[in-house]
Each structure stands twice: as structure tokens, then as C-alpha cells.
């Protein structure tokens, strides 16, 4: 799902929501730079810096998903692109990281993928609509909430030395 409008809370909520992120250990595999530093120490430092930058990105994604739409948009390279695979009805309203992330950085340091184990809260509108459901919606309800475990996969891209998310994709646990 590609999104360009992140200005209204309602539309925003249909895509995702906020959650606290858990501190995670670095698990980035070795990555080679486009212009590899000669100094192995500098190469390792770059890798660690990339990992931390990407980790900050997905942590910001979790934090801003149901809050600050502008802050969320600033995390993305282009339009906000969140794919939850839930169809038209359900929406993702909260995320909580629950394990260690795995960050894979391409050898040229231009792209990366961060996989974050998480639990997500999914809200499905109760339907078909009826007066009772309408009344419940008027006070913020009218949805069936459930949580499930899965993984968020953040495809990231580095431009001008800055990492951003190109696409965030949710995969339910099998």
C-alpha cells in the first residue's frame, strides 16, 4: 500500500499505529562499502554506524506510526509505503518490537533490510454497519481488535549519506 497522504489521523490509523520499541542488539552482518575503507577499523565503524542509523529508522517508524504523521513521513524515501497485506478492512494500529532485529546491509552500502520481530495490534471494523456499530464508531470503537506476532521488514535506502525507509512490509508469523 503506497500512501501519499499522511495528514489526517483517521487515514493514518488505517495503516498502522505506535508502539514502544525494545532495545535490540546489533546483528548486522558484515557489509562491504562501495568505496571500501582501507582501514578495517573504519570499515567496521561504518557498518556499525549504518546499523545504528537503520535501527533508529525502524524505531522511529514504530514510535510515529499512530502519532506524528509528519515525523513518520520524514522517515521514508518518498511516499510512505506500508504494506500490511490485510486487505481493505483491517488496519494495523500498534506495533511492539519483541526481539532482536536483523539488519542486512548491501556491500555497496546503498540498500539494507531490517527485519524486526514484533507483535502488532490489528483492528477490523465490525460489520455490516448498523446503528449500534455507528454509535460505537462515534466514540472510537466499532472495531474488533486482536494482536498477532509477525515480522516487519523495512527495506531501506541510503541517499546522500542518509538512510531512509523505502518500504515497510508486515509478514505475519507462519
Amino acid at each position, binding site marked *: 500500500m503506497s500512501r501519499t497522504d499522511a495528514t489526517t489521523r483517521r487515514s493514518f490509523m488505517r495503516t498502522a499505529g505506535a508502539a514502544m520499541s525494545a532495545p535490540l542488539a546489533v546483528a548486522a552482518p558484515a557489509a562491504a562499502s562501495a568505496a571500501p575503507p582501507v582501514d578495517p577499523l573504519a570499515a567496521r565503524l561504518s557498518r556499525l554506524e549504518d546499523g545504528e542509523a537503520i535501527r533508529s529508522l525502524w524505531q522511529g517508524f514504530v514510535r510515529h506510526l499512530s502519532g506524528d504523521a509528519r515525523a513518520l513521513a520524514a522517515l521514508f524515501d518518498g511516499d510512505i509505503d506500508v504494506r500490511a497485506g490485510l486487505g481493505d478492512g483491517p488496519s494495523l494500529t500498534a506495533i511492539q518490537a519483541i526481539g532482536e532485529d536483523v539488519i542486512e546491509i548491501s556491500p555497496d552500502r546503498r540498500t539494507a533490510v531490517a527485519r524486526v520481530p514484533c507483535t502488532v495490534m490489528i483492528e477490523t471494523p465490525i460489520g455490516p454497519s*448498523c446503528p449500534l456499530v455507528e454509535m460505537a464508531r462515534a466514540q472510537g*470503537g466499532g472495531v474488533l481488535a486482536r494482536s498477532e506476532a509477525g515480522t516487519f521488514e523495512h527495506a531501506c535506502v541510503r541517499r546522500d549519506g542518509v538512510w531512509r525507509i523505502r518500504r515497510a512490509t508486515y509478514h505475519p508469523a507462519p
Partner: protein
Amino acid sequence: MHRIRYTKLTPEQIAGKLASAATGPASASPLSDVLAGRSMRIVLDDGPALSYTFSGSNRLSLAEGDAAAVQAGYGALTLDRLILFSHMVPRTQRGYTVVLDQDTNLVTVLEVWFSGSAANPDIRDEREVQRHISYGYVEQAGRPAPAARHGITNRIEGKGFYWKQDGGVETIEYYPSVMYSNFVELTRFGGELSFCAPSDYIRISDDKYIYSRVEAEFSGTMTTYLLDPNRAEQVGVRLGFDESDTLEYYVFRGRGEWVGQIAQFEPFGDVGATIPLGNRNVAAARGARPVNRPLRTNPIMTRAEVDAAVAKNRTIFPAASAMAGNKGPISPFLSGKALTLRYDNGMAIDYRFDDVQTLRWRREGAGDAAWRQERYESWESAPGVIMFGHLLSGAADHDAFSIVVDVDHALATCLHATMGTPYAGNEAAVKTVFGVVEMQGSTPPKYRRHQFTDELVGRAVTWNYSPGLTSMHLYSTPHSLSWIIFLGNSAGGMEWSGPAAYVKIRDELYLAYWLEEACNGVLGTILVNLRTMRNCGVDYAAGPKGLRLSPVGAHARHAGRFDVMKYFTRNAE
């Protein structure tokens, strides 16, 4: 109250009518002089300080922040060490109701005003009193500001009281929600129906509370009072315009009776410090809050509009219905049977039940050509007690029946629904008709019938229709029913109320209907089984999408009972 056409007063009309409020509120009881001669500066957490000087029991001066002081009339009453005083600000449509605890010096201030539409687009009726609640304290020279504050609470949720004010007004008031309340006007409107209003509940201490409601969608009148639940005493203020557009502005003292406490469903430990509204966006305007305004989302239709919509679409017992996620299995009991339902109003209907969802009916004595085929659904709520519903296709008023037959006793009760009232083409009407079942092997009684009953009155029952969709019925008077929608934390939320009737079928088995009057026009009919704690029934509605006859099925929980019947029983004299 649903039927009163309250005048859409203009701001100019309101300003003119408020002129008399400048001298302060009226009172049937002597006003308190506890404040006379005192000056105080009230510091508020979210507003300008209010500097008061009280020159007597009915005159004060007020400076709001750094503004110049103005003179106004006021009225004060006390409840123990609590003081409630009220005044308007002259030449404005604003005023204040202030509650001061003399022991703690903590203060709750309700700023009130009329003509709220300019600041809040949700307000379309200038006579609807708006309020903003601030908390603070009375500044004490040489003392630090107290850290404690009054605040919203659910600690009074579930209580109910009968009240009699010093002016003679009697009410029953239920608090089944943290943001709404029910009130029954015993003297003003005869106590037939209950009504619902957005409300505030504020805790002062464990035995003192502030309650406030605004009769939104009706007169717009605000009633605010201090409440002592132990002694069932109140002091308060009423501000607004009645059905004749006359200003009501008075303080009152009342005594009452505690009528009960029903259940709360929040998690243990939740004391209602916040009201969870999920993803509901409440306008940022001062005083804004969620208010149930059902006629905005369910606009009134003419009969012609309804007829046209029904001609285009009729939905009869759809497979999916949020109101029937927990319905019981369709009963095969009637399938293959033939019977006649003979009612006391002279109506007699022959039935042939061809299968579990197809029936034919005709007026008794009509020829074979008169049979009409309908889709129906039926449920056997208790052994031998079947509820079924069907449309009467071709009927002029889009008639439908919800029927309970007690085969064991050969009794039948029919809720005969029609679409359209003098008030709206898309509002249902209903008549309750008693009768008997004539079928092979049964002997219908000549005199015995199902009966109207008051046994449900005062009870509260939750209904879980589908996962995530639960309401609570409060059988608030012998002739009305209120429904309360739960918030995300299972606290009571929005409400509405409508006329209702209750029929006893057997012990712990009741047929009930309610009309969602001045609302969406739906007629709800349910057979309530308090032994199995579930219902079955039929909703009947019309709107822009046509006519809808749909099943209802829910699981119940007892939520408690208010002991109120004695207030509805008329003496013989």
C-alpha cells in the same frame, strides 16, 4: 422530550433572554451567605485566575485574569463544607459554576456559555449550553499551591438516585456511563420515558461528587449538582431554556433516595481518570466532547422517500448481521406446520410453514389466492416457545410481524410493526397484540394471555451481539429502554433511549421492544431469556438503503438492578 420542537433560538434572542440572569439565579431555598464579605483568587490549571469579592449573599465582583472587575448577581448553596455558587457575566452569554471545598481549598470551575456554534462546528443549536471544566485551588497567602485536584472519575458510574428538588421537581437519574447519563422527569414530563444526555462526573472525595449534564439535542439545558451519595443530598444549578423558551436559571437543594448500583465492567484498578475514545477525533474547540446526535447521521425521510427506497431494496434476514453474531440456530420447529394466530384485536392470520425459512400467510378466511410467501427466521428460545418474524409484503405501511408463540400454552403475542410516524417516514411504529395459537392438538385458552410486565424495569443487562460489539440495556421505566455503548475499556459510553414495552411470556422469559425514536427509527424486538442469558429477535428499519428485517442474537450478562418501580406506580387517589 423527543417530540418537542425546541425553538432554534438565535444568539440575539438568547442575549435578550439572559438579561434577567444578571441578578443571579433564583432559589426556592434561602441562599447561603457563607461567601459574604470574602474575597478569593482562584488559580486554574488551564485558564486565567478568577478574582472574586462577595459583597453579600447575592452580589459579587469578578476579575478574569488581568481584566477589569465586573459586578454580577450570584447564588450560593452549601453541602457540608462544599460551596456551589453560580453567576453569569453581565452583558455576555457566559457564566461560571464554581465548586469550592473549604477543607482542601480545591476548586472545580465550569465555565458555561450559550451560542457555541461560532467556536465549535459540532454545535448547531445556540441554546445548547456549552461547558469547559477547569480545576484549581483558592490561593492562600504564604502557602504553597496544593498538588491535588478534583478530576473525572468512574467511581460514581453505575449509581442511580431518585431526587426531589426544593422547587418540587422530581427525577430519577441513572449514571450507567462515564460520559452520559439517563434521567427520568417524573414531574416535568410524567415519568413515562427516560432520556439521555452527555454528562460529566467529577470526584471531590469518595463521598462527594459533581454531576453535570446538558440536554443536548433537546432543550440544551444544563443541570449541575454536588452530590452526596451517602445522604442522598444534592445542591445544584439549572441553566437553560425550557420548551416555552423561558429562561430557567436557579440553584436548588434536593434530597433523594439511592435506588441502586449496577455493575461496572472496566478492568480492576481503572478508576476512570481518562475516557478512552480510541481513534475518535474530538474537535479541538473549547468544551468539545463526543455527543450522540443521531438525527445528523439518520436524516428524517418523507413517506414518499421511504416508499421509493423500499421499492428499490428490501433486505430480509441477511446472512451477515453484526447484531446477530451470537444468534442461536434457526429452529425447525415450525417447518411443515399449519396454524392460525387469532388476536384479540380481531386479526387472524393463517400460516403454512413450508420449510425453515419459507412461510405462507393469509388473512383468515381469504381464498387460496390470498396466500403470500415470505422469508422468515425463527428461534426456539425455550422449549415450546418460538419467536419468528416476517414481512407482510404488499402491506401499505411496509408492515412486519415479530411474533412469539408459546405452543405449550397456545398463546401468541405479536409486535405489529409499521413504517412511518407523524414525525418521520423512516421511523417505525409498533402495536402489541395478544392472542392465541390454533393448531392441531392444542386447545387455545379463552381468557389467559401473555401480559405486559414491569418485572424488567430497573434491570440492566449487557448484550454481546458479536465479538467486539456489546451494549447494555437499561430498562429505565415501564415504558422506555436505554442502550449504552461500551468504550474501549468497557466503561459505559454514549447512550440513547426510546419508548419500549415488556411482555412476560414465561418466568424469566420476556418479549421486549424498543423504538429508536428521534434517532434512526429502528424497531428492536427481542425475546429475552434470563435463564439461558441470551436473546433472539428481529430488527426492523427503513432508510435510504431500503427496508431491512434482520436477525438479532446476543449473549447476556446481568449488570444489576435499580429499585425504581415504586416511583412509577400511581396512587389511586
